[in-house]
């Protein structure tokens, strides 16, 4: 099962190499639960998430604040705070040479290699993820050195190339400190830095949030062209549905720690089958079109993760909810080709607004 191991990579502990995934699967998350210790007791921030990401695709994880999207990303890179832990489930990752890593039992140097060489994460606040006392050049050099690439000149050369790809003036930016750059420039530096070691998977957490509109557009265009050139796999986390519409091949909606709908981007946007996805879509104001577009809000607010409602966690806010939804949690139903939704009433779910007008509060 384990093929030839390249000499530059120490073999993971035996129990972290379990089987192969399907050839095109890069990441497989199965029944993932993440628990935070809080003064009021354990709180489940991610509840049984299952998701596969295939080579070369872009998957958007959408949902509102507190839905568990960022926690899921952090858990994959084993970057959770000390008060959080993966309480159940597994995540497998197929590394470059075809072997499979069990992410939650990786240790020491394997973990270090996995992070950044196999999977890199770009964080929301790019100012906080860059070290304020290091010039941009040193960020690239230190990252490369930490992963055994000691040729600084080669690193600088690669850095300039990547910075050019994100539409930055490499020479000028490399000798700048983070505070000398605008928010949009810092975000592009972070993206370039994440690509330095050619990871297979990039996780972007809210890549355009808190940036000006024209800067957001530049970041979106940069990400799109980078994917075309470098062909990496991408998972991005966003509360912005429009960003998912722009960049994703597949979309997964998260609500109160659960993945409630997963499908191809056109299926999820044009024929959403989970009422929460519908609620989100009906709340986004469009700019195109010469007519006024009425919108509706999802009534109520997301549940307290320490006191979850019975049955379906969305039932107190859902216009389709019935007795069944109060009693029983819905499984993920196959609602179309590669399209799943966790709703008993998915066959009745439409984007019509009038359903929501008199919704429960």
């Amino acid at each position: 099962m384990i093929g030839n191991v390249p000499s530059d990579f120490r073999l993971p502990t035996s129990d972290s190499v379990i089987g192969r995934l399907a050839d095109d699967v890069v990441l497989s998350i199965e029944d993932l639960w993440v628990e935070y210790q809080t003064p009021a007791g354990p709180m489940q921030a991610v509840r049984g998430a299952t998701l596969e990401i295939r080579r070369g695709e872009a998957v958007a994880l959408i949902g509102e604040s507190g839905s568990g999207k960022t926690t899921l990303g952090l858990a994959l890179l084993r970057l959770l705070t000390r008060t959080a832990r993966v309480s159940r489930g597994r995540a497998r990752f197929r590394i470059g040479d075809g072997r499979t890593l069990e992410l939650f039992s990786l240790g020491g140097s394997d973990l270090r290699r996995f992070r950044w060489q196999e999977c890199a994460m770009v964080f929301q606040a790019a100012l906080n993820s860059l070290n304020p006392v290091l010039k941009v050049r040193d960020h690239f050099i230190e990252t490369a050195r930490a992963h055994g690439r000691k040729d600084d000149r080669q690193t600088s050369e690669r850095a300039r190339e990547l910075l050019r790809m994100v539409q930055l003036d490499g020479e000028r930016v490399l000798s700048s400190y983070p505070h000398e750059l605008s928010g949009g420039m810092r975000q592009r530096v972070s993206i370039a830095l994440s690509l330095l070691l050619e990871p297979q998977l990039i996780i972007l957490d809210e890549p355009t949030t808190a940036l000006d509109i024209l800067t957001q557009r530049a970041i979106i265009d940069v990400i799109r062209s980078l994917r075309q050139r470098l062909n990496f796999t991408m998972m991005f986390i966003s509360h912005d549905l429009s960003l998912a519409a722009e960049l994703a091949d597949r979309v997964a909606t998260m609500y109160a720690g659960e993945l409630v709908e997963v499908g191809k981007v056109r299926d999820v946007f044009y024929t959403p089958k989970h009422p929460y996805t519908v609620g989100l879509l009906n709340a986004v104001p469009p700019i195109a079109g010469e007519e006024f577009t009425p919108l509706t809000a999802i009534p109520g607010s997301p549940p307290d993760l320490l006191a979850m409602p019975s049955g379906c966690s969305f039932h107190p806010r859902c216009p389709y909810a019935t007795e069944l939804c109060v009693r029983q949690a819905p499984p993920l139903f196959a609602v179309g080709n590669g399209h799943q939704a966790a709703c008993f009433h998915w066959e009745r779910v439409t984007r019509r607004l009038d359903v929501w007008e008199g919704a429960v509060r």
Partner: protein
Amino acid sequence: MTITEPLLSLDHVSREFSTRRGRITAVDDVSLAIGRGDILCLVGESGSGKTTVARMAAGLLEPTRGTVRFEGRDLHQTSKGEHKAYRRAVQLVHQDPYASLNPVRTIGDTLRAPVLHHKPVRGRREGTRRAAELLTLVDLTPPQNFLSKYPHQLSGGQRQRVAVARALALNPRLIIADEAVSMVDVSIRVSILNTMLKLRNELGVAFLFITHDLAVVKYFGWEGHVGVMYVGKLVEFGRTPQIIGRPLHPYAKALAAAIPEADPDLTRTKDKLQLRSLDIPNLTALPSGCVFHPRCPYVVPGLCDEVAPRLEDVGEGREVACHVVARERQALTPLSPSPGSTGEGGTEAA
């Protein structure tokens, strides 16, 4: 904009600031007016001066030049009594409800304070009754559930509703909302916007609504006007449906084109306007001529980089500050006299 006297007007208002790197003009010669029950949206990116305009309109900042008038009276020349009346009539809602609500006061205390201070009602019990009324107005029901809570016990959206409720405490005639919904989630954003629209429709409250998001302007300001600001200047002004449907100023066009849509087919095929540069100019070293010319794809060398365009009326109550737009209009309007024309030739073209 309105035939009657506007509620609040800014008349050729400029504001300068001294910074370590020199003097900057955050707002440069902006004129705006808001009538009773009107919605006026100001849209622009960071550094556009929209928040400085909001602060001047709210009386928190005095203009370096120009005047702010409330019901026709210069805000900074009013008597103490008039100023107090203005303070009641114009209320500000900030972006960040975490920062603007006092964390050690209950929601009830927060809402009672302005009522008891300005004395439209007397006594704690009356104050509480008014506080409950305000909570109901902003859809925090039943109010009893919220009066004794502290800000940290509420969600971000609920806190922003409390901030709106506090702004309503003194029956204001104008609410200045500065990025009031940019920090809340999508579905909550719509419900807060709907609540504010209800206040406008039912109570006749006018809104000066500051945002960076044209899509939000389209929804909230559909029945009002929008001003597009760029590094301190108003570059386009008009009725919201006109500006959203057919922006004329290249910067407004770029903004509208840049916004992604929650529709995969539409957003991926939408015409984008490629700017020549991504950088917003430094306020301490503004470009010559039109401040947008270094980024503008339509730039006319020798004109745009030399002469600053003035905001000009282009009909239908719409104003644009752009040489290129002005030229196109001249080309399309044969009756307007052009240099060297005898004044007769225009009729054939019509």
